[in-house]
């Protein structure tokens, strides 16, 4: 019924621990994926075929209509840093939006993020930082409250973002894992909505980065779920995958009510779980 969150397909297919899953998958990779070793030279037809397959795997047979009004993807045409590509999703009709999915077609694990908005959300704009491994279309698919699916895409030139080494040891990269910060600013609709920037300290290891000490691949360890609420009112739930850049930063807007703090619960695929609360600035500020 609902949309499959990004990480679920692996778990369903391979009922094992994530590490084992990764290994099992890597065995299956060699053949079928070579056909999909897409790159700068792919034709539009090849890109469309790939998108159609991904779309079907995520949304099944449901129709996904193109849209120019419900969602827009902003991303650099050429990434400055393939391991940190800022993406902005703008949704000019927030009242209609129930959720949005981000798909990076030519990444090894294309389904990058799925966001479901709660009653306290202002879904006008979402910003994320992602890894881009290849020249690729970046698709955003909006789910409307009446059950429709609408897509748009932007082409991004980048290379190697998923396998780019962190430039430090795994231990350094994991320092302070689970620490969070949140900054608030006036939102897109003036006083009614508040913009928030959530920063989470987490390496989000993609499983494709080499450990500089052991000379082995660091097992994937990534933020799988982030639930943001104000009091009992949910703002958003994000399902994430290895395409989210290390030390994830998420920008969103919400409709504050009362003085309850904003609570963030983040969990990763290795049973890491972190919870933090942030006082909401009073409207008089």
């Amino acid at each position, binding site marked *: 019924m609902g949309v499959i969150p990004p990480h679920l397909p692996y778990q369903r297919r391979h009922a094992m621990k994530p590490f084992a899953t990764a290994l099992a998958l*890597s065995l299956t990779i060699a053949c079928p*994926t070579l056909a999909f070793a897409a790159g700068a030279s792919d034709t539009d037809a090849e890109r469309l075929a790939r998108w159609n397959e991904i779309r079907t795997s995520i949304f099944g047979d449901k129709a996904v209509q193109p849209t120019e009004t419900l969602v827009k993807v902003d991303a650099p045409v050429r990434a400055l840093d393939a391991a940190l590509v800022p993406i902005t999703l703008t949704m000019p009709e927030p009242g209609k939006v129930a959720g949005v999915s981000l798909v990076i077609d030519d990444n090894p694990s294309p389904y990058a993020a799925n966001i479901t908005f709660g009653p306290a959300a202002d879904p006008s704009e979402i910003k994320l930082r992602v890894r881009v491994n290849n020249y690729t279309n970046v698709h955003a698919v909006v789910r409307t409250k009446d059950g429709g699916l609408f897509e748009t895409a932007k082409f991004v030139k980048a290379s190697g973002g998923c396998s780019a080494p962190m430039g430090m040891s795994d231990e350094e990269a994991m320092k302070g894992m689970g620490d969070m910060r949140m900054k608030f600013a006036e939102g897109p609709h003036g006083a009614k909505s508040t913009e928030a920037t959530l920063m989470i300290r987490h390496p989000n290891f*993609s499983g494709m980065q080499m450990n500089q000490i052991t000379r082995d691949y660091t097992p994937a360890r990534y933020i799988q779920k982030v639930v943001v609420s104000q009091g009992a009112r949910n703002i958003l739930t994000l399902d994430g995958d290895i395409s989210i850049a290390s030390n994830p930063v998420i920008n969103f807007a919400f409709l504050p009510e009362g003085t309850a703090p904003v609570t963030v619960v983040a969990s990763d695929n290795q049973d890491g779980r972190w919870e933090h609360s942030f006082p909401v600035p009073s409207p008089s500020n």
Partner: protein
Amino acid sequence: MVAQFGLSPPVAGGVQASRRAALFGGLCLCCLPTLGRSAEGFALDEVGPGIFIRRGPDAEATAENADAIANIGFIVGERSVLVTESGGSLADGQWLRAEIRKRTDKPISHVVLTHVHPDHCFGAEAFAADAPVFVGHHALRAALDARGDYYRTRLVELLGADRAGKVVYPTLEVTDGAEVDLGGRTLSFHAHGVAHTNCDLSMRDSASGLLFPADLLFVTRIPSLDGSLLGWLKEADVLKAMGAAQAVPGHGPTRVDFAPAMADLTRYLGTLRDETRKAIAADLPIEKAVATIGQSEARNWALFDLYNGRNVTQAFKELEWE
């Protein structure tokens, strides 16, 4: 079938994208006109007694220039020769070795690998037959393990397998300091903290007093930040305290007055630091920050548009958690 979409981790070193238009260790290969000049077209400057340096052009690696873009050269002692930087490819290293042999037949006893970047260490294979000591930072081996294959793949795409060069590991791994006596002159090495990269090695020649900061000092070419912004500013002070009047930078003219050259570099890095901190404090998102930060420096550096935004991204990542 499903696996096509679930290819999470780890593809053994395999998911290397693209072609020549790819990012080459973060260096964009495709945006600049080629130099139209082969490695053989470069000359060596004698910057001090027995010290010969080739000025690398302020360009990106291309098939035509064989990645011969760094300042590389050699120092001749009474007994043997030390190679200050190996070159950007096997072809570049072979060119340097031929230049050495035009001037001296003393044995090549040492080859310095100043840091992990390909324009500095992929010429090393050209000296393998000399069986020299390969001098490197203690963190270089691990850095080469993490990136060497990636760099090599890019170089092979660009130059072909026979001209690219192989990953060569240091055989003398410098932890703090080390000294090498060539006869009549001693080279003193210093392994720096994370700065330009996490494995920067500098060197001082006793005979000339010249400092070889490698890529801890960029002149004319915009510095590329691949380690730590604050760390680099700290190591700049370490280099200043060494008291050298003149230096051979990793890029730029082959011999410069050290203080003003380093002042230019730290001015750029300081601007990057201050403006990035300001942007973070003002909640400027990273995609806006890359377009505004450091613009006052645009006229001062070659390749500014290619690297500044990337440097800002690195700075942002480093400073937003302060």
